[in-house]
């Protein structure tokens, strides 16, 4: 055991001398859950393993979700082409006519769009992003042995897994998965007879998401408790890296908004199964009047978007946190305006709860109420702009190392600006009359919270891969991945703005049958081809990821990026408990780069005589 042996590494000596002794070694041998393969890698309670579980499960779902988008992009780009070659995979969902020309079933097209949204928003960008990095970094960067409750943490992952299994199962139903859009608005979602996907598909969809919420809440409770209770000695809130601030606020957002989604779903389940009328009123199906009277579909929208809007910040805040850290480390400069960054995270977190109706400007919400939501929506531009300004000024004049991680960080800033600017258009209820439900919206949210969040995630993966696996990912492949994705993502989504401004509506099965939109066919083909290329580049990333786990360049030093945060003080392949001996204690914030002529001064280094704290 390392704390028995005389420490030789410089960090170990420092931690041994100045660190905090929590008598960890006395318990180490009793960690019976760490013995054996199943306890160590499957039902693990080690936050580092759970982080990897979230990441790899998220990657699995990202591939499924992306493949779905390719199928519907093929339909949109080449509606006349023969799709019979997909029949071996999609079976009944490809209908082959007498001439042998195969076409995608329209019902399944909607199912694909719905599942693509659900999977990407919840499974990939919530669980895969926040789940991975909150788990990995919160204990490591705060100097904690593990989460407050490793057991709940393990459950958090397995509820996510269960939720994923149910959703996966729903893909193979003979009636197809749910197809009413990822927002699941009633009546399409509340009436089993509304469409084929609204039957068993919707039941499983709801069930899956309820389990997903359980997973998010178990995780969130743990993250908040750990941040507030288990920080190491000296780690005041104002010394926490911005990653932790972001994960912390993200967890609070999830904790306050996801239960509202469950409430909305429970009322929906009652409408579906028990004949209540929370969301249904005066509906005719097949010429027959249903019993449901007195419900309000807009009520569901309110409840849904009370989660739905914070959800987009649940997705983007962790990415922002990761990018802030990655940019500071790779620019070799302190993050510009640390406190402004923290306050803007908090401001975004607060504003997240009072803007939800901007998703409903065209749903019959009172225009005077819309004004209120317009104002708060536009105010979000302020903290967002503060953050963008600070990222750029962090890079400005820095000794920037253009690693893959850093490139993805810079790419994130670019995408966040592009996507954020179109948000200002959409946030105005008057302009939204023209823009709503068009490809302009699709372009906006894909850039600002889809691709941008992915870039944050990639920045995080390239940067912390050595921490996770003790090896590096291939940098050349990483750079190809970056440039291909960066150019490709803009190639996909930039043209969509033009489509949207021309009024092309989203969620349509094909446009060639409309004279108004048929002249966009080449643009749609271009988008589809770009999407295929970008997907191929992601395959490259997946190969790089798995190849590097086993064959990547080995880590020889603990702190390859020269970062200040505590995770780089642990041994290269740290066991459960993270530090073999004492926990490092913290003496400074995490952004002492280029201070007093030193390139970087890690957080566990004591203050020198005459040295003053930067902030």
């Amino acid at each position, binding site marked *: 055991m390392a704390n028995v042996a005389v420490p030789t590494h410089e960090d170990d000596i420092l931690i041994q001398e100045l660190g905090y002794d929590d008598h960890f070694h006395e318990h180490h041998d009793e960690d019976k859950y760490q013995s054996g393969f199943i306890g160590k890698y499957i039902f693990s309670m080690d936050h580092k393993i759970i982080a990897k579980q979230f990441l790899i499960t998220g990657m699995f779902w990202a591939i499924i979700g992306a493949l779905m988008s390719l199928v519907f992009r093929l339909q949109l780009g080449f509606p006349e082409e023969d799709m019979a070659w997909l029949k071996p995979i999609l079976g009944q969902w490809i209908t082959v006519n007498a001439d042998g020309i195969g076409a995608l079933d329209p019902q399944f097209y909607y199912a694909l769009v719905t599942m693509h949204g659900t999977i990407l928003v919840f499974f990939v960008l919530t669980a895969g992003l926040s789940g991975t990095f909150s788990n990995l970094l919160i204990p490591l960067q705060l100097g904690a042995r593990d989460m407050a409750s490793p057991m709940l943490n393990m459950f958090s992952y397995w509820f996510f897994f269960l939720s994923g299994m149910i959703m996966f199962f729903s893909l193979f139903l003979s009636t197809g998965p749910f197809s009413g859009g990822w927002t699941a608005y009633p009546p399409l979602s509340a009436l089993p007879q509304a469409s084929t996907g609204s039957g068993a598909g919707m039941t499983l969809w709801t069930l899956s998401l309820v389990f997903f919420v359980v997973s998010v809440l178990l995780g969130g409770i743990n993250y908040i408790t750990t941040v507030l209770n288990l920080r190491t000695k000296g780690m005041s809130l104002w010394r926490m890296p911005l990653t932790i601030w972001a994960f912390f606020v993200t967890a609070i957002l999830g904790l306050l908004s996801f*239960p*509202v989604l469950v409430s909305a779903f429970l009322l929906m389940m009652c409408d579906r199964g028990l004949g*209540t*009328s929370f969301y249904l009123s005066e509906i005719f199906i097949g010429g027959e009047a249903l*019993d449901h009277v007195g419900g309000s579909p807009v009520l569901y929208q309110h409840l849904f978007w009370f989660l739905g809007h914070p959800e987009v910040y649940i997705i983007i805040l962790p990415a922002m946190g990761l990018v802030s850290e990655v940019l500071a480390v790779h620019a070799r400069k302190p993050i510009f305006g640390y406190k402004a960054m923290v306050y803007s995270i908090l401001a975004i977190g607060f504003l997240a709860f009072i803007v939800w109706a901007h998703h409903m400007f065209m749903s019959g919400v009172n225009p005077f109420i819309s004004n209120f939501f317009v104002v708060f929506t536009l105010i979000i531009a302020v903290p967002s702009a503060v953050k963008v300004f600070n990222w750029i000024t962090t890079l400005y004049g820095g000794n920037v190392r253009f690693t893959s991680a850093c490139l993805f960080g810079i790419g994130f800033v670019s995408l966040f600006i592009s996507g954020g600017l179109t948000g200002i258009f959409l946030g105005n209820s008057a302009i939204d009359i023209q823009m709503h439900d068009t490809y302009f919206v699709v372009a906006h949210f894909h850039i600002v919270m889809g691709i941008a969040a992915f870039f944050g995630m990639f920045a995080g993966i390239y940067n912390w891969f050595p921490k996770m696996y003790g090896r590096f990912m291939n940098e050349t492949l990483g750079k190809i991945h970056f440039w291909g994705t960066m150019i490709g993502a803009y190639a996909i989504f930039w043209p969509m703005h033009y489509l949207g401004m021309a009024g092309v509506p989203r969620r349509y099965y094909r446009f060639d049958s409309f004279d108004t939109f048929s002249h966009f066919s080449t643009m749609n083909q271009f988008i589809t081809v770009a999407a295929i290329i970008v997907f191929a580049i992601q395959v490259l990333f997946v190969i790089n990821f798995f190849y590097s786990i086993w064959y990547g360049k080995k880590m020889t030093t603990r702190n390859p990026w020269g970062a200040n945060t505590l995770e780089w003080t642990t041994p290269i392949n740290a066991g459960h408990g993270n530090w073999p001996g004492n926990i490092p204690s913290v003496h400074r914030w995490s952004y002492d780069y280029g201070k007093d002529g030193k390139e970087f001064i890690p957080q566990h280094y004591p203050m020198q005589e005459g040295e003053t704290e930067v902030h």
Partner: protein
Amino acid sequence: MNVAVNHPNSYRNKIHPKKFALWTACISISMMFAAFSSAYIVRMAQGNWLEFPLPNWFYVSTATIILSSLTLHGSYWAFKKMKTGLYRALMLMSFVLGCLFIYFQYLGYHEMTAMGAHLTANPSSSFIFVISWVHIAHLVGGLGVLIVAMLHAFMLEHKVTPARKLRFELTYTYWHFVDILWIYLLLFFILQQQS
């Protein structure tokens, strides 16, 4: 197993992390009911709202659950004072009262149905059914916790250790929470009916 918090020195805050986590969970659960409450208000404002008095059994069940909170707290007091018999008896009583609460709610549902305010009559009655079901679901979780507490009370030797004290405190915190949650819901229904 619990490398992070089992050792008393590994945290220095006044509140135990597990207690803090429980409070956080309670806030989260409260948000669910806040959502129900606001949905109720929004829907009520839209009209077509059947009015009916709350069932009398709801008041009986409220008294029951308040009593169970008191007995559980009494049991905690007896636990600390080493009065083993009282500790066990009051614990059992809390559990029985908790079960009775569910039964009285059930009688309340019958009362509502009898007056025509059945589950699907109107959103006004549907809301009361569904909200109180979800409350019962959370109360059942509390009963599960009480079963574990009773197993400890009846099977283990009566000793006041920090770990057992903490466990008891977590138990009664949650039990009081579901109790207060129901009182809030009842007051909410009463106030909405009067408005």
